[in-house]
């Protein structure tokens, strides 16, 4: 188990599977197995990730595998491009899902402090049903499907970025707790701002005060805006699909609100005409929504400002290099950084020794140069 490379030959399928199992159990790491023949099926199924190559020896390996490739050389692309992207996408998606549901759910808890803990909902039932179905589910799908931190050719040039996944940078406990805290803070901000801004004095020029349905609808609007704008802050790769889904979800909310409240009063009950007649035309509604959204998103925004400016991560630096064009204008630097990133990821005894020898040679070369020049 202390070897970097082991070669086994003339092994049976059962032996292949048991070697895989042994490595998996003893090292505790994630194992990938790749093979192209029927005798590799056991090994592929035993590993955490099984990759099958379709081709000369038939389709059995492909049918048993999690991913299938037509040629062995595509393994690099599978891991370094798609594996890297998938890791970031899944992390962002899960953390955001937790965040948005914490934001919605906690406002209901806070409200119950004011209702004598009787279990009264602040929002109409249909609003809450639509939350995870229509109003906030699509933008996060666009994150999960389309998000890229750097483009595919850059991923291949900088394999060190793949190590972000191995070191679990995007989904460690710090991040999870950070997002949950963000949700708690956001829900508190939204709830308190709405409660204090809308009661007890009148909210309209005509002297009407805000009742439960008004405060509920305005608070819910703030939540929809906030969680959708939060997705926009999380995305670094905006395609037209992302724009359609994010802003479309917000527009969907207004369409839903309008349609729901012009239905005959049997269906919406107390929220009948709440948008069209009562709060829609009031400046208070829009002014409160604006400030609540900005204040709720400000902590996260300040966090990413500080992180990007003073503690940037590798993908941020590379994004900036591409943005400012220094990859083209300063070609040698771009190539040098690629070489250095490849050095970091080398494994294998002989490869490491080679790298060390090269490093020492460079140093000697520099010393000789300075000796000769002086």
């Amino acid at each position, binding site marked *: 188990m202390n070897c970097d490379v082991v070669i086994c030959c003339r092994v049976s399928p059962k032996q292949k599977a048991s070697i895989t199992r042994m490595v998996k159990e003893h090292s505790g790491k994630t194992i990938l197995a790749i093979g192209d023949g029927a005798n590799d099926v056991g090994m592929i199924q035993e590993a955490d990730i099984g990759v099958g190559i379709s081709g000369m020896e038939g389709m059995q390996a492909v049918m048993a595998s999690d991913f299938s490739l*037509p040629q062995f050389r595509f393994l690099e692309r599978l891991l370094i491009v798609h594996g890297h992207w998938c890791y970031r996408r899944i992390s962002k998606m899960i953390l955001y899902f937790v965040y948005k549901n914490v934001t919605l759910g906690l406002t209901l808890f806070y409200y119950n402090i*004011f*209702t*004598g803990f*009787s*279990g*009264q909902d*602040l929002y109409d039932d249909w609003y809450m049903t639509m939350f995870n179905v229509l109003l906030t589910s699509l933008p996060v799908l666009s994150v999960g499907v389309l998000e*890229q931190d750097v483009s*595919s050719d850059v991923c291949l040039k900088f394999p*060190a970025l793949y190590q972000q996944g191995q070191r679990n940078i995007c989904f460690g406990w710090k991040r999870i707790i950070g997002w949950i805290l963000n949700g708690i803070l956001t829900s508190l901000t939204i709830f308190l701002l709405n*409660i204090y*801004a809308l*009661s*007890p*004095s*009148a*909210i*309209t*020029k*005509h*002297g009407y*005060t805000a009742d*439960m*349905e008004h*405060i*509920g609808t305005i608070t819910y609007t703030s939540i929809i805006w906030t969680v959708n704008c939060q997705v926009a802050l999380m995305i*670094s790769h*905006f*395609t037209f699909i992302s724009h359609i889904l994010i802003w479309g979800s917000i527009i969907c909310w207004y369409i839903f609100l309008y349609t729901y409240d012009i239905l005959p*009063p*049997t269906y919406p*009950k*107390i929220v*009948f*005409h709440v948008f069209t007649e009562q709060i829609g035309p009031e*400046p*208070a509604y829009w*002014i*409160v929504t604006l*400030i609540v959204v*900005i*204040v709720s998103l400000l902590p996260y925004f300040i966090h990413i*400002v500080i992180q990007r*400016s*003073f503690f940037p991560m*590798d993908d941020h*630096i590379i*994004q900036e*290099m591409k*943005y400012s064009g*220094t990859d083209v204008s300063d070609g040698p*630097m771009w190539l040098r*950084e690629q070489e*250095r*990133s490849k*050095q*970091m990821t080398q494994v294998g005894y002989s490869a*490491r020794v080679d*790298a060390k020898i090269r490093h020492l040679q460079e140093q000697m070369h520099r010393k000789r140069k300075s000796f000769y020049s002086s």
Partner: protein
Amino acid sequence: MSSGDGASQSSSKKSKKPTYSRFTQQELPAFKPILTPGLIMAAFVFLGITFIPIGLSHLSASDNVVQLVDRYDEDCIPTYNSNPEEAHNKRIQYIRDASTNKTCVRTLIVPKKMRHPIFVYYQLDDFYQNHRRYVKSRNDEQYRNPSAERKTANCEPEAVNDDHEPIVPCGLIAWSLFNDTYSLLRNDVPLPINKKDIAWQSDKTHKFGSNVYPKNFQSRSLIGGATLNESIPLNQQDDLLVWMRTAALPSFRKLYGRIETDLEANEVIKVVIQNNYNTYTFNGKKKFVISTTTWIGGKNDFLGKVYITVGGASLFIAIAFISVYLVMPRPLGDPSYLSWNKNPPSN
């Protein structure tokens, strides 16, 4: 012949490569924003310079609102006992006794000129209109439709009276209708309060029926509040409509009426209150409020202050950011910040 065969062979051999599309190859054109220091500064400065004026205009509108709040529940039933528990019991006894005189006169002095329409509200504190069982206790179908009179689901215990006849309007919300009345005197001249159109239009036209009349209302042993005139249909009973919209918080105001004339500064307004409503058993408070409104509504400094605070904080952050950035600048795309340059791989 053979060349013809060769030609047809090459055309029939199909490539297995999937058709290229930008979506499946994830090469859609994309906008990749970067948080450059310029953009960060611009964002915070923009926030500052837009929010501070909004906050100032909101605050100045709120300052222009003239509002008078007068708590009257304790003073209207004076008890000269020093013992709070005795006072509490005495008040409860007084309010429940139908024979006591519930008239109470309060004096208010107008601090600044108030332009009409001036809104009159009653404010209740510690009254949980938002309790789940209270909110549930209504039947909208019965209020809308005279033939749905017997539909009293959810209205327990105020659903049917002792003869099993349905109560219209049923439910605890209607049963607990507020019944203090106010009449105003300005320099001992009666000041009329306009009680028309104090409810939302949609309530009058759609939610409450124009041919549904109160029946058997407050006919059980416990009377919770006002009685209703049985000859007026529900959708014209404005006080009921206003009360039926349950408030969100335990401290709320409801519109009572409007004063359609201006009030000058330092005028003496006497409020003659019929102190009927029992808030004493649960230590609730009753307050009488008159207030003008502006484009933002009533008097509420909170929103204006929040806007100004956020605007000011944004400007402060912008200044702090630029000063820290000038001290420790980081050029865009500086490779020395890459992790393999900061911590060189040590073998």
